[in-house]
């Protein structure tokens, strides 16, 4: 019993505390590749603390829907985090078909972020909002196909089970399919988290931005929630990929935690490397990339069905 409690506590603590580390790693990697020293690893934590202490500026155009975005996006990402398998153990919440709840929670967050952006009446934010949902509508089939392939390979219907013990035998049998699936999932993760090559989280040229332009008008605690929610979302995808590639994760709490943290760090480094070596794609190319990811995982699925 106390072991269970400790496990749940550890999972919650990881989910709550680790996420802001990931963007730190990403920007550090980017800085290093570019030959700069880069910001401290824990920069985002201090940013969040500072934002929480600030007041906020609210647009005279914006109404009640303006605050929906930050709040619901953060809550959705955190709730989705509850479904992600923990270190060496199943998730706090695991049931057959939980992958669809994960997608639904992230979609709810996105829906509200988009409404927040539209509530400011800004042309730029409207543009970002339209792009975000358009690309998300193409990322969703790819994500579902990835998870479907995983599910078929392991014969399991919940995230915790398909990324748990069943994963080892599945790798032995279906390595090529799972590898394709991991690549597709990585592309989806980049798209869902507004990373290069789909979106550029650091640019401040409005015409090229998607996610960033939607949150331009948020400030203070709102902005803190936006940044934190985005970090949690990155954590969710990172944890899924880490589990997939590390074959179900290590044994026990300690081993599991270590493998999860190492996996997350590797994921963040990979994201950083992609961001350093690639340019943002032209807008019209993005759908092709996402459909490509879908086709990859469809191919993986066909390999399994054969």
């Amino acid at each position, binding site marked *: 019993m106390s072991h269970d409690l400790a496990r749940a506590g550890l999972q919650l603590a990881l989910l709550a505390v680790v996420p802001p580390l990931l963007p730190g790693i990403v920007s550090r990697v980017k800085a290093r590749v570019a030959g700069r020293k880069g910001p401290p690893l824990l920069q985002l934590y201090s940013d969040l603390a500072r934002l*929480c202490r600030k*007041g*906020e*500026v*609210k*647009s*005279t*155009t914006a*109404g*009640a*829907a303006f605050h929906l975005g*930050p*709040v*619901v996006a*953060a*809550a*959705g990402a955190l*709730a989705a985090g*509850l479904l992600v398998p923990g270190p060496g153990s199943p998730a706090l*919440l695991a*049931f*057959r*078909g*939980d992958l*669809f*709840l994960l*997608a639904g*929670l992230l*979609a*709810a967050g996105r*829906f509200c972020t988009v*409404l927040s952006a*539209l*509530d400011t*009446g*800004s*042309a*730029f934010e*409207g543009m970002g909002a*339209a792009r975000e*949902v*358009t690309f998300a509508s*193409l990322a*969703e*089939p790819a*994500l579902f*196909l990835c998870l*479907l392939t995983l599910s*078929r390979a392991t*014969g399991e*219907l919940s995230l915790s089970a398909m990324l748990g013990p069943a994963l080892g035998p599945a790798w032995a049998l279906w390595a090529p399919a799972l590898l394709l699936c991991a690549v597709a999932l990585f592309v989806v993760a980049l798209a869902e988290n507004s990373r290069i090559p789909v979106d550029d989280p650091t640019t401040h040229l409005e015409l090229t931005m998607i996610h960033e332009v939607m949150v*331009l008008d948020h400030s*203070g*605690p709102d902005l803190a*929630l936006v940044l934190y929610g985005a970090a949690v979302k990155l954590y969710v995808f990172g944890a899924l990929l880490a589990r997939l590639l590390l074959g179900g994760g290590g044994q026990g709490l300690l081993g599991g935690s270590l493998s999860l943290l190492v996996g997350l760090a590797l994921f963040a480094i990979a994201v950083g490397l992609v961001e350093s070596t690639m340019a943002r794609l032209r807008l*019209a190319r993005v*759908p092709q990339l996402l459909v490509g990811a879908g086709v990859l995982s*469809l191919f993986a*699925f066909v390999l399994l*069905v054969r």
Partner: protein
Amino acid sequence: MTAFLAALALFAAGALAAVALSSRPRLALAAATAAAALGCAAGLLPALRVLAGGPALDLSLAWNAPLAGFHLRLDPLAALFLAPLFALGIPASLFGAWYLRPSLGRRGLGAFLCAYDLFLAALALVFAARHAALLLAAWEAMAVSSFLLVSFDHADAQVRRAGLVYLVASHLGAAFLFALFLLLGREAGSFDLDAIAAVRGGAVAPALAFGLALVGFGVKAGLPPLHLWLPEAHPAAPSHVSALMSGVLVKAGLYGILRVVTLLPPAPAGHGAVLLGLGLAGALGGITLALGQRDLKRALACSTIENVGLVTAGLGAALSARALGAPAVAALAALAALFHVWNHALMKGLAFLSAGAVVHATGTRDLEAMGGLLRRMPAVGGLLLAACAALSALPPWNGFASEWLLFSALLRGAVDAPGAAALGAGLALTALALVSGLAALAFTRVAGVALLGEPRSEAARTAHAPGAAAWGPLLALGAGCLALGLFPGAALRLVAPAAAQLLDRPAEELLLAAGPAVRAGGGLQAGVLAFVALAGALELWRRLRVRRQGQVAGETWGCGFTVPSARVQYTASSYAQLLLSTVAPRLLQPRARVTPPQGVFPGAARFEQRVQDPAEERLFGPLFHAAARRFRLLRGLQSGKLNLQLLYTLVTLVVLVAILALRSRP
């Protein structure tokens, strides 16, 4: 059964009262509304009792007409469809009483109210009829009364056109139904559905019967490519009628298909596959069409095509899975589809009613003339926003619960089934994922452009919130949407008997297959509740912070653009443009006419775009034009001269007598 008959009697009394009191419109409106709402309340009880496990109610009366019979039966399948009719009927009628108040002085209000009550009665009879003649009579009464409802604003040419399209579609569909029931009835020797069910269609080829039902009922259900009337008729009708049409009338088509499926031998996998394919095509096509609409209610009507597609896909998956021997998948899919019937009735009812209030306040249905309405009418706007979230299948709303079930069904099919079936389920799952993504695009577009940002016109700037009479019914529907989303297990318990009837298996077994996730305290419910609780906690934290640290008002940051105005906002067309131009197939892309700014000192520029339904443009348009050309040749016969008409009659009589004389000769 008494309560159900009381409901019918109340509807009839309301219809009579509406006509009798037509010279005193205020009283007529009150009487018709009261009768409709009370009738719905009376009917809801037996429907729910049957679904809660009560015995099926049966009533058979003598009807002295050849081939006819008056036989009613409230079995679970009928009750499943009656429940949303009555549950939506109460708020819709009350909302109608408010909505029609400005029309009190109009001629024809009495007739409209009469048609409204008759419409409710006809719908109830369609679901309860257990005799083909009664079913068809009710079916036609439903079509005609709803035609009258659609044509309420008949001074408007577009409304007349919508009514005509609807009437033609209805009757073409009904022709197939007559053929279907004549075939089945001849085989069974009786038109009573019990008799037809007993012989299971007899020697009639199941594929033929299924095909006839699919076309005949499919017109009403708005299955592609027979959905053409739907985006025309829904927006033309007054909003509370649109809500009922979309929430219930369209479902009558689905009900018909299901009823015929229960009359025939167990459907082969092919029939299920056809339904699945049609459903997916409808869902994808409908939501893509919705993306191009500037008319708020038209966009909602197109989303009805999408949702009917989801239900149809679920039913198709259920029938296929049963035929292929995958009972768990069949159970999940059937539960999902039937649950979605309820959910769609509630959320589309909410959407149409709140859209009605918005239209009422702004005097326009054009999205580009709205904007900023959430600040001016927070209650109604908030409820429309909720409806949009539910229609985008987002937790914690009810649309998510049924879509989750549907996804789970297909996932299980794709994981367990061998070969082609798994591939089919996987592809269907992917298509539905795309549909839900596009739905989010379509409904952020509707909600964002209509409700948020700066007002886009003077009408939107001066719009005012309606009183409690309008948003009381909305609030009830919104609460229903939330309740079914938070506690889907309880609703599934009521849906299960109908699914059991469809699949011929005990309800308990189906619920077991649905898994513990949706039960009270199950994983899905826990996850959704955790999400709601987290959002609540974060909102509370944010408020406390802002209260302590203060809030300053400022302009929206214009990126250096110093004169922001409502006209620089993203429009409904620009919002969907990226998807429609880069991803959508050519057939579904809007036709745009652009006159770009030209020269060193550019003058006026123009941009016009129109979304054309490919079914109309490529299929029915050419077909009907060709038919009209041919029929023009016959026009000469119709000279209108009395003596000629008499001659035709005489010739017909002679021919008939001659045929009879020839046939009676030994």
